[in-house]
């Protein structure tokens, strides 16, 4: 059996890429994809631990998070499309009115 460490390292790398993506990119769609990457990194480590411990709970949580992520994508993409239609851009730094 592949040691759980490999999966965790891969998961960590994916999560870091996702985090950096969220922080440095301005395009809402790219940020969205980065967030999906983070979520899937976490799913990966959940499943890895589930297999390591011989417990199904981790897999169950992974399914939940996938379902929730799908729902989130629906809402999030709808918002992004709405913003794009209005402003002709998907740059998140332009949408900075919600402050003070």
């Amino acid at each position, binding site marked *: 059996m592949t040691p759980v460490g490999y999966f965790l390292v891969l998961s960590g790398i994916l999560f870091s890429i996702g*985090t950096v993506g*969220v*922080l440095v990119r301005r395009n809402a769609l790219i940020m969205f994809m980065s967030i999906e990457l983070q979520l899937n990194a976490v799913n990966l480590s959940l499943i890895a631990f589930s297999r390591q411990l011989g417990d199904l709970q981790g897999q169950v949580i992974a399914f939940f998070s996938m379902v929730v992520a799908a729902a989130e994508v629906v809402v999030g993409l709808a918002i992004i499309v709405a913003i794009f239609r209005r402003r002709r851009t998907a740059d998140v730094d332009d*949408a*900075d*009115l919600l*402050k*003070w």
Partner: protein
Amino acid sequence: MLTTIYLVPLVPLVAAVINLFFGKRLGPKAAWLACAAMLVAFAMACVALAQLLALPVTERTVVTELYQWFSAGTFSVDVAFRLDQLSMTMLMVVTGVGSLIHLYSIGYMKDDPRYGRFFAYLNLFVAFMLILVLADNYLLLYLGWEGVGLCSYLLIGFWFEKKSAGNAAKKAFVVTRIGDTLMLIGLALMVLQVGSLGFSEVLGEGAKTLSEGTATVIALLLFCGAVGKSAQLPLHVWLPDAMEGPTPVSALIHAATMVTAGVYLLARSHVLLTETALDVVLIIGLATALYAALCAIAQDDLKRTLAYSTISQLGYMFFAIGLKEYSLAIVLLVMHACYKGLMFLGAGSVMHGLGGETDMTKMGGLRKTMPLTSAFFVVGAWSLSGLPPFSGFFSKDPIIAAAAELGDELAWLVASVAAFLSALYIGRLLFLTFFGTYRGDKHPHESPKIMTIPMGILAFLAAVGGLLTLSPKTGELEDWLRPVFGHEPEVHEGFLSESSLTSISVLIALAGAILAWYWFASGKVAWQERRARHPRTRAFLASGMGIDEGYRRVIAAPGRLVAVFLTAFDANVVDGAANGVGKLSVLVAVVGRRLQTGFVRTYALGVALGAFGLLLWLAVRA
């Protein structure tokens, strides 16, 4: 009537309520309603008196319990009325003199815009005063006590548009409240020690179980209440100022009835008066009698002179109580109600005729223009000075003689000096006002019949009142009152015989009156020039020996400082705390809102850094 005696205070109370609500609509009828209520009350009191007289002497105490007021554990208070010789006497004074003063007020208060309200207050006062004298326990008495205080406040400040009247009302209320509070503490002590406030419990069995010290403390606390209400030293300062009220009020409340409530209270509670307490009462009473007589001499205001005179006479009453001559105190109370009420009404009549003038230096010679008022006033002044054959001679002189007969030479001497001063100041008032030539610029005229007739009746009573005490030492009124007070004061062999004591006091009064005549009416002394010679002594006496000023400095000024401090404390600390919280949150927001950049990536960075920090902390901790 004896068991339905509660109707006597009830009738004026109902009239007061009607006048309070509908007084304005009733117009002049309000006065007639009030007077009718008073006359009904007086008639009922007369019936009760006749019925009480018909009973044998030993059964002349009728207690009527109406209902239980409240109870707490074993302690309970009833609404109960006690009719005995003492309360019957007070009942006659309050309803009798009260009725006359009500009638007089019809004329005096005519054209006042708050006519109905005046009579409502006056009736309310009478109702409370009747509750006070009829109560069968100290709490009900206290209800009446505070009630008359309230009415006194309302009536002194009746013309509240005048700032001085409003201030005088507040002063009277606050100063008497000092005494009232101490009296309430006395009642609390009574509940604690005896477990009851009923007269029969406290003054009967209860008084025997009390230790000497406790009885003294309770008696002195009650006396403190009396000192406030009856304007004795050192709480007398409110009474001269109370003259700001309408003159019938001064006559009814501040001469005839309310201020004598303290005398009634002590006479009622005489069982509790221990030797120590009696000594205190005697000294305060005597000091007040002398002090107020001295102050009265220097007053230029007609009503203030009478006010100081009242204080002085009340001092005599307390002096009599201090001598254990309770019946004599009550006899003087009754007579004083007649002649002092009369003189106040006379003063009111003078003011009525002179358009509100009260300065005696601007009067004089009024006996020509106001013959009836002058004649009645002479009777009043004659009575007060203690000259025979009017009532003052039969009421005040026996008290002074009693001091000698009880072997208290010093007290006798001081009381005699005060008696001399009494004759002097009342003579001065009489001669300055009614004799000589008119010095003012108004057109004096006699008052209408509705005012002179009540004065005439009072003058008649003041003149013949002495008949009630025909024999000065074992008078009828005293015989009547004796069962209430129980004992005969032990008579020592006096240092002078009774007849020589009487002659001495008559001579003293005569000397005072003649001196007053010589100075102010004989024309041989230029009193207006003499006045200017001792301005500082005059001002000292006229201001009541600076006691008011002393209070202003010692009590009012620090009180004002405390008030200033507390205002500042409230504005800065209390309000400051409330406002500070608001200001602080604004301040925090000014800085804190900068965190809200609106850039979604900044927030993401915050979340990431937070998560990283949390991980780091977990790692370090493990």
